[in-house]
């Protein structure tokens, strides 16, 4: 079995490489000519009933002549890529590339192609993905198969380089479509020069490493009343910045060791003769935990990506409200990241979410432990779940037992049609929401 998979993997690499090479090296006309040659060769087998073989030789000779132009291509360009800091998955973007001709010749009819890091997975990744797909998609259900590589980060269209005189600089626009969240890594650019007939292209690479962060796709969530109430935050003003009644002090008391000198009420000290300090009202504000379930056996599934998107959507929405947000998830280890006013911005949380990977080799207990440890500081909990099984129900039950208001969002595939078993949420069914892949946007829009 493993040998067979190895063989398949080799075939996969060979096919993807040859497709990539053909598309780079040949123009559309060239690709059509290759097809034409194959057809002419086959129809030529029966020369009595078809004259297709007559087409083979002209195509063949043209191809040979074109191939001869595939060598001796030298370039000298100064290139600069102007990329934005971040982009969002699925949203095409056009960025600017400046090209300066450093040669002494006029450069005409060239094409520029971006070189990205080889997106092909390692054998282990490929095997996991293939076995998972075979397990979940029946043979010959081609409409259900994912023909797009789940490893490809982005598609970049090739662009025509404007005609450049020696030492002339010009800008060109390249369109990039980030396909999934993560980091798009550029290694360089390739200049292509077609032969006179426009069949075969000579290529010249130029290194230009750069990277671009792709944030997860996000959905619009209406301003929602999050569960929970304000809670004392030990960080005080530093954590809460301008939230609460921090500007007003409520009483005066005698100085105690450790009070900050700036709290001293100088006028009272002068009147009484001993240090008196201002007593401020405690800082209270809302702090929420956003719990992302990363425990899945299908790392390339839509469900996991949607869960990250939902978490990202909440991160954006909650942080525009007056609150703090703790993002809790388990990757290679347990993570807690706090954002909110005065601490970090939504962008930073999105950047973290852009790189979230499924928890491999960890158990759900780790997440449970992480969240329960934080339960004392948060006033409410938003859980984005990948399933609604006994373990997760128990987890939610514990949170609720601690008196923590919980909003549970369960990501489900369209094939799962049966209603969710309420379990620990039976007394608050409106706080358990099933989000069906494909309808998540409208379902989130309906949140109150």
């Amino acid at each position: 079995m493993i040998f067979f998979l190895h063989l398949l993997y080799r075939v996969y690499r060979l096919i993807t490489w040859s497709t990539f090479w053909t598309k780079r090296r040949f123009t559309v006309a060239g690709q059509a000519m290759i097809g034409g040659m194959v057809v002419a060769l086959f129809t030529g087998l029966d020369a009595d009933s078809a004259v297709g073989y007559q087409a083979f030789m002209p195509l063949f000779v043209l191809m040979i002549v074109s191939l001869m132009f595939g060598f001796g291509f030298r370039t000298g360009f100064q290139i600069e890529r102007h990329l934005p800091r971040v982009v969002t998955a699925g949203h095409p973007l056009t960025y600017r590339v400046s090209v300066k001709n450093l040669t002494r010749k006029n450069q005409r009819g060239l094409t520029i192609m971006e070189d990205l890091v080889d997106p092909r997975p390692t054998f282990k990744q490929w095997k996991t993905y293939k076995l998972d797909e075979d397990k979940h998609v029946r043979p010959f259900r081609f409409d259900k198969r994912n023909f797009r590589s789940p490893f490809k980060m982005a598609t970049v269209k090739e662009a025509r380089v404007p005609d450049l005189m020696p030492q002339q600089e010009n800008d060109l626009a390249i369109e990039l479509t980030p396909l999934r969240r993560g980091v798009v890594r550029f290694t360089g650019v390739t200049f292509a020069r077609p032969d006179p007939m426009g069949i075969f292209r000579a290529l010249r690479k130029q290194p230009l490493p750069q990277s671009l962060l792709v944030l997860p796709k996000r959905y619009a969530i209406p301003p929602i009343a999050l569960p929970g109430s304000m809670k004392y935050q030990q960080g005080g003003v530093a954590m809460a910045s301008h939230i609460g009644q921090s500007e007003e002090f409520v009483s005066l008391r005698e100085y105690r060791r450790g009070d900050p000198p700036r709290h001293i009420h100088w006028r009272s000290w002068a009147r009484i003769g001993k240090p008196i300090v201002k007593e401020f009202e405690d800082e209270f504000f809302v702090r929420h935990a956003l719990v992302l379930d990363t425990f899945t056996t299908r790392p390339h599934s839509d469900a996991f990506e949607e869960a990250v998107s939902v978490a990202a959507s909440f991160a954006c929405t909650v942080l525009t409200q007056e609150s703090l947000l703790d993002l809790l998830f388990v990757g290679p280890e347990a993570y807690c990241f706090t954002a909110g006013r005065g601490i970090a911005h939504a962008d930073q949380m999105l950047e973290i979410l852009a790189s979230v990977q499924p928890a491999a080799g960890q158990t759900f207990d780790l997440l449970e432990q992480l969240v329960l440890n934080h339960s004392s500081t948060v006033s409410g909990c938003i859980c984005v779940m990948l399933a609604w099984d006994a373990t997760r129900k128990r987890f939610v039950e514990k949170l609720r037992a601690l008196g923590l208001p919980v909003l549970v969002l369960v990501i489900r595939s369209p094939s799962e049609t049966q209603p969710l078993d309420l379990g620990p949420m039976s007394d608050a069914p409106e706080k358990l929401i099933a989000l069906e892949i494909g309808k998540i946007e409208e379902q989130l829009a309906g949140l109150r």
Partner: protein
Amino acid sequence: MKPPPFLLSVTLLFWGWQSDLVLPGALMAVILESALVFRTRWDLSEDDFSKTWSFCSLVLLSAVVYSFTNNEGPSSFATMFDDLSASNQRTATVASARTAAQVIRWLPMIFFPFLAAQTFSTRESIPLTTLSLILQRRWRKAKQLGQPLPPARGFNVGYPYFCAALLSASFHPSEDTSFFWGFCALLMWVLWTQRSRRYGIAVWIVLLAAAGTAGYFGQRSMAGAQAYLTNHLSAQWLANFIRRADDPFQNRTSLGLVGRLKMSDSIVIRLQPETPKNVPAYLREASYRLYRGSTWYSGSSRDYIDSIAEEQPAPSGNWPLLSDKRTASRLNIACYLDGFDKGSPAGLLPLPSGTARLEKLAAYTVDRYAAGSVMAHGPGLVLFDAHYGPGATFDLPSGFGTVTNLRGRRLYEESGLGRFEPHGDWASSNDPPVFVYSYTNEDLAVTPLEAAALDAVVDELKLKGRDQSETLRVLQQFFDNQFKYSMWQSPPRSSNTNQTPLARFLLETRSGHCEYFATATVLLLRRVGIPARYATGYSVHEESGDGYVVRLSDAHAWTLVWDETHKVWNDFDTTPAIWVEAEKKNRSPLRWLKDAWSRFTFEFAKLRNGQGNIRGYLLWIIVPGMVLLLGQIVFRRGRKRRKDKKSDADFLAIWPGLDSDFYQLEKKIAARGVPRSDAEPLNLWLQRVEKSPGMETLREPLRELIKLHYRHRFDPHGLNAAEREKLKAETKRCLELLAQSRSGNS
């Protein structure tokens, strides 16, 4: 990518020229280019393209079916499944190839509606979803689920169509290099638009000219290599090694085979006599002259093949075999042409002895062989009338041979072996020149290997010196009394391994099947100086309904004896009559089932081989069907509109709140001169109502009423029973107020 102007029209003309479909090609080109004159464009939706594509696919399917039946596809495949012999496989392959070639030749016509749809539409490209079923399914599903639709990719059908047209144009036999030059010209045209701006035009021209020249010479040498391969290593050449069962030139017997011979009892021939019960005992396919080893050869008869001219006006279906013979009987024969020759099904026709004329035979060609056989090329199944009667046959008389060229004549003249004596019926054909001569009589030839055994029997029966009729009688009795019919042959004893199978049959086992009896009889007769030949064909004995059926197991061999007095060949069968019964014993108990299936396949074969008018019907079914479909596509818009209206009504009927009593009031107020326009919200309308003279009193009650009405109409929870009652009551009150204000005004 969009093809340059006029490229597709010129390609279509080129295709028409190459495929002998100039008129359709020109017509399509004109339609395509009329887009330059008629600037009207249709706003075709994706659905319209999808329908057009479905239409083209259906036309393609119909073309495949039509072409398949036209090229004897079903019959050749049925035959192949019946008997998986190499020749049958080849027949089926050839039928498939011919179907494919024909359909490919029609591709530009089949997919023209799609191209025309794009040309006359407002779109430059067609979405891929119109073609890909997988994409269509994904889209449909996404729509149903309300999911975001996958990104739509479009393509221009121009270049794919161009490639398809070139492919179609290449599907014709090679006659000259016109395709080559046409192809090169069109290729140059396309490459001109794709050329790199980096290089000058001169470079482009020089390179292309060089490539074209090299391509021409390369193509010529490739054609040479092709011819060499075809002649020396082609499948056809290999097929020469596979000898057909119905070979007029030789017949390999089963003499010497050990064990039981197995014969299929499937029906191969159906006979319908003119008068009931009047059927010939034998249907002959061929006769043979020379016996060597275990094989009978046609000997010098093989050199002559005479093509029979069909009676005019063709296709009359009448083929005269013996022009001056009058016949008394007529027999309708239906048989399959199992072989394959010169690109069409071919086979030897099973004919009664003395057949002079074939009628209603829908064959392409009919050839008469000097060996006494008739080979027909035609559809897989033929039905015809054979006119026959006692007397002359078209076999070459005893002692005659043929040569078809002068060299052969000179050889025989010089050797002094034969004399040239043009023979009546055969001498009439002059193309190629035929010289018929008499030489060492092959009809009396006996191989020395068999001579000893034959002499032993001749001596045993004291045949020498008897006259012909007496000899025949004695031989008949000899085989009847001392031999038994058997499909089983035991292995020879080790001491007698040099003995020929025939000698074993005559001297030892005295049991065998018809081939033994016929071969022994022919050779015994020849040994005593009576010219005889070995005949193969079928024995007719099984009635079925008002006709007869002949099975493969009825295949038979017998003897032809030369009657010197009347100069005719007569049938003489020494196989014991019990053989028919013996064959019956081997029949399967499920034979009736096979027969029923055979009848069904025969009737079907009749249809598909054009013996019925199915092809005519097929056209009549396909054409109106396609017209109907096209009509559906063209007039679908109107139909859809009507349907949409209806569905709107349905939609409204189930919409909640449309039964609100408020509408009565709205009508009344409209009648009082304050109608509400379609796009006017109720609140704005209400403001107008309040300002209208005499309706001031309605202000408050109307506001209340509208609140209730809105809730009834749009609140997902609707109104409860009490609120619904309130809505009614409020409406009633408003109506009363309206009535009062009216009376007050008046």
